[in-house]
């Protein structure tokens, strides 16, 4: 009896943490996550452009409604984060596209063919695009680049550097706090990209482990975790977008605010004097 059950034993679940190379084009190696990223990008373009052409004033059901809800949600989020609503309107297309890009890439990574089912040269052919640290780092660098460039353009370079310091930078205390603020800004790229990469990769590992545990009932045992990963994928796409919008809104709002909003030593005594004169 035990010998029969021994036939199901293998060496353990097969998990892939890094992406493998599939083919080369003129000496540039293409990995399986880049390849699947192209496929998902084409699917995203085709879907969103056909839905945009079918937009009518009267509401229709189906995928159109889903995209409308997503666009309205993110657009409201972006515009309500800025103090001055018109300033935020020009950033809406980028963040809506980013949200749908990350959402489609996370969800299309759960389709049954992706992973070790289809193999070429012994490596899996398809792998979710956001499951590769290079990919999420690229998305993070582009997004934070947009945040820096936009805040410098909105407020001017001098005001942007000044918004880190809450007082006179020659005071060593305010200088130290300002440098810590700048350092926190730079760790945001890493935290955004690593959060997305780890959530997607660890989801893949959990699904692989549970598919291995139910050896011939693998679709049944991995179904609950696939549903959890649908929720986690949507949540992580939303969190990436909401955190980037928050970083952009905080820099722009603070850098373009009037300078009397920060209370330092001279201004506190000034305000107390003014208030005592009024009373």
């Amino acid at each position, binding site marked *: 009896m035990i010998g029969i059950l021994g036939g199901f034993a293998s060496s353990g679940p097969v998990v892939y*943490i890094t992406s493998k190379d599939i083919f080369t084009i003129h000496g540039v190696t293409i990995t399986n996550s880049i390849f699947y990223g192209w496929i998902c990008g084409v699917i995203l373009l085709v879907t969103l452009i056909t839905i945009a052409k079918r937009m009518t004033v009267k509401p229709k059901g189906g995928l159109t409604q889903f995209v409308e809800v997503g666009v309205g949600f993110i657009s409201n989020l972006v515009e309500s984060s800025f103090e001055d609503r018109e300033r935020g309107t020009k950033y809406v297309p980028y963040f809506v596209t980013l949200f749908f890009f990350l959402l489609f890439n996370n969800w299309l990574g759960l389709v049954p063919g992706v992973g070790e089912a289809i193999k070429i040269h012994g490596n899996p052919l398809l792998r979710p695009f956001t499951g590769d640290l290079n990919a999420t780092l690229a998305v993070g660098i582009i997004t934070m680049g947009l945040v820096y460039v936009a805040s410098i353009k909105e407020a001017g370079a001098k005001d942007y550097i000044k918004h880190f310091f809450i007082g006179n930078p020659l005071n060593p205390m305010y200088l130290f706090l300002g440098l810590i603020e700048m350092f926190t800004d730079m760790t945001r790229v890493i*935290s955004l990209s*690593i*959060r997305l990469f*780890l*959530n997607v990769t*660890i989801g893949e590992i959990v699904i692989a482990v549970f598919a291995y545990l139910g050896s011939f009932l693998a679709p049944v045992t991995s179904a609950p975790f696939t549903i959890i990963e649908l929720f986690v994928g949507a*949540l*992580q796409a939303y*969190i990436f977008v*909401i*955190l980037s919008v928050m970083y952009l809104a905080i820099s722009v709002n603070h850098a373009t605010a009037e300078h009397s909003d920060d209370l330092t030593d001279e201004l506190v005594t000034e305000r107390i004097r003014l208030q005592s004169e009024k009373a």
Partner: protein
Amino acid sequence: MILIADAVNTAIIGKGLMIGGGFIGPGIGIGIIGGNYMAAVGRNPEASKFLGQALVFIAIIELFALLAFASIFIVK
């Protein structure tokens, strides 16, 4: 330590300790956020519009738990 590492697989012990210790903090943190959210909703049912914000905080805390999990693949 080198003598111990010859007889005992210290890499496995290291990974186990990192995973075990690393999941305590985020578990407690998410529990506190969840508890405060439920207390606020119980007191004032209109506070359920803050569910999106609570999930954002949970994802920020979850990052540290995932970093502990990722250390399996870093320690050899």
